């Protein structure tokens, strides 16, 4: 096996000269992953600004302002009070999700059941947040209507007062409101419909979308590097070095073993860089790294062997290269590099899992999301190792059967 080591060292030395290819193998998946994560996979909640022009400045108008800032809605929206002209200009410039104008006399009109108009202007360039603002405003108005119906007597008492109410009057109104709340509470809380609550089976914890993209992105780097390295058999043939190997007493099997070993190391480095970046970005436990790294290196050499075997079946390098590239992109699509298998329709995902890289990405997903450091099963390892050995055997046959002699 001495010559296998020589062949390995030779290919590693040649690979070091071709740093541009390595940069491409790494950067394209990283850029793709970065873009996809930014566009679809981010866990950051949307956040918008609601501009509010409160021309009424009453207790009731402040209640509305407070409603937009309370609870989970407050996490989505920042409410900023502003003047009419400035608010209009800002929402027209797209600097806010919406502008709500509470007109002067709003509280009085509400108390006296007179018509009043709230003006809501939304940002047409946004879809989700303006919709939320509109729905919340409609709910608030509905709630106001029912509150008005329920507490009409108390509101009438309040509006008929010419002076500030005394403590006794306030207490009497509060007691009346409390009594009404208690009388309607059984109908409102809880609902009159009895619901039998059935505990659902404990669901698996859902994974963030960006994490589900990660194996596909890593397999993209592995596919690119495996395909690129497989083309080296044609390069060696065209520069005459394969023939020279046949002239020598060195064994083709050792030459091939050295090449496969070099491919394992190069793919391990390329995939390893993307893997480490993924681990850092998602905060995955480092204990899962060794198995993940070995998995992508072994998967990579299997893909390398099959790409090489396929390329060696063609009669010229150009056809081999075109066919190989034509194969890479459907594999990337089917194997979940652009859309994770987890979010694909079931039947497409089933096909994708049958693709070599889809299977490899699926196993890698298991590895990085499981609670154990070595989560890929024996069956998975056997499949990929058998695939690598079979691919290399075909390569050896092609080299001996005439590819190296041509």
């Amino acid at each position: 096996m001495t010559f296998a080591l020589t062949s390995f060292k030779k290919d590693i030395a040649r690979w070091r000269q071709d740093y541009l290819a390595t940069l491409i193998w790494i950067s394209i998946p990283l850029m793709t992953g970065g873009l996809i994560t930014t566009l679809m996979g981010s866990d950051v909640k949307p956040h918008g600004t609601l501009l509010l022009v409160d021309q009424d400045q009453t207790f009731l108008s402040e209640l509305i302002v407070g409603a937009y800032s309370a609870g989970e809605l407050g996490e989505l929206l920042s409410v900023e009070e502003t003047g009419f002209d400035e608010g209009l200009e800002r929402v027209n410039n797209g600097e806010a999700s919406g502008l709500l104008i509470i007109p002067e006399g709003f509280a009085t009109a509400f108390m006296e059941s007179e018509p009043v108009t709230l003006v809501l202007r939304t940002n047409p360039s946004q879809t989700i947040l303006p919709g939320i603002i509109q729905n919340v405003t409609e709910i608030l108005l509905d709630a106001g209507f029912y509150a008005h119906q329920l507490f009409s007597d108390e509101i009438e008492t309040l509006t008929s007062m010419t002076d500030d109410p005394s403590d006794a009057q306030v207490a009497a109104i509060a007691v009346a409101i409390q009594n009404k709340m208690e009388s309607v509470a059984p109908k409102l809380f809880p609902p009159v419909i009895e619901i039998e609550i059935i505990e659902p089976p404990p669901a698996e914890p859902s994974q963030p979308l960006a994490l589900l993209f990660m194996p596909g992105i890593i397999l993209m780097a592995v596919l690119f590097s495996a395909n690129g390295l497989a083309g080296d058999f044609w390069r060696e043939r065209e520069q005459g070095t394969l023939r020279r190997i046949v002239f020598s007493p060195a064994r083709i099997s050792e030459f091939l073993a050295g090449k496969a070993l070099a491919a394992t190391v190069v793919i391990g480095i390329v995939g390893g860089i993307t893997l480490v970046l993924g681990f850092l970005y998602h905060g995955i436990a480092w204990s899962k790294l060794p198995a993940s790294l070995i998995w992508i290196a072994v998967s990579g050499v299997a893909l390398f062997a099959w790409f090489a075997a396929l390329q060696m079946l063609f009669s010229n390098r150009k056809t081999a290269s075109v066919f190989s590239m034509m194969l890479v992109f459907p594999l990337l699509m089917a194997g979940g590099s652009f859309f994770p298998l987890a979010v694909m329709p079931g039947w497409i995902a089933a096909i994708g899992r049958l693709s070599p890289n889809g299977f490899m990405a699926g196993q890698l997903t298991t590895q990085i999301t499981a609670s154990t450091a070595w989560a890929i099963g024996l069956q998975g390892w056997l499949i990929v190792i058998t695939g690598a050995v079979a691919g290399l055997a075909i390569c050896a046959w092609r080299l001996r059967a005439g590819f190296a002699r041509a």
Partner: protein
Amino acid sequence: MPYSDTVWSVVMLNVNELSKNYGDFVAVDRISFSAGKGQIFGLLGPNGAGKSTTINCIAGLLKPTSGHAAVAGHDVVSDGKAARGNLGVVPQELALYEDLPAVENLRFWGKAYGLGGPALEQRVTEVLEYIGLNDRAKDLPKEFSGGMKRRLNFGCGIVHRPPVILLDEPTVGVDPQSRARLFDMVEAERDAGACILYTTHYMEEAERLCDSLAIIDHGKLIAQGTVEELRAKLGAHDVLQLSGHFPVESTKQAIAALIERGNADLEFLAQEEDSITLTLSNASQHLPAIFEAVTGTGGNVTETSLRSANLETLFLLLTGKELRE
């Protein structure tokens, strides 16, 4: 064919009734020759004559259809690994790692032939100096000129100090300076005791370098011997080439009449629309008669060329065509 140890101490390369067929096409047809230690054996022939096929059979790249070839006593088929171990091949096309420094190329091919350790390093240093690339040892061949690549290609073929070297048209596309350097290297290997099989279609290379020659055409050996033996076959003949315009049939008849009239050693080598090539002894004395015969048929001579016969003439004589056709 069994050989005694005594014979093999001299005969390093033996080809016996070697044939290679591709279906019905016979690329090499039962050729036999042998070459000894410290000898350069030339295999001459035009493109497509079967030279490279013969080399590829000896090198183990092609399996002969019939016949045998042996390198240093090892049959290239039944004892292929040992045969290849004694062989250094410098292929016609460059066979280098363009993205591997020159010194690494030499190391790699040395290791492919089983060299290692200090012996390899010493030999690599020697070869780098020998091929004149010691100052460019760490540079990539893709940055080299064509001549430098040819020299490195040669170095890779001899780095393991092979007793038998196959050189397949090593000067094709090489500038005159690099060609002269390659000749020096080939002669140095010969002087060091290597047996060299040198294929070429340049007759002047063969005449300069080769101790003995075989001329091959359409896969068959048509002449074989030392350069002197082959020259002797031509006697003291001159080659006369007349350029102009000649009617084909009547000119042939006029030349045949000259032969019948007592010019027995006059031979008709070739005729085309615009040239006639003849061989005869003391050509200058017969020029007036030849001119008279040719112009008598209506031919028009515009240029006359007279030279001594060489191996090219022999090839023309044997095959009726130029070596470089």
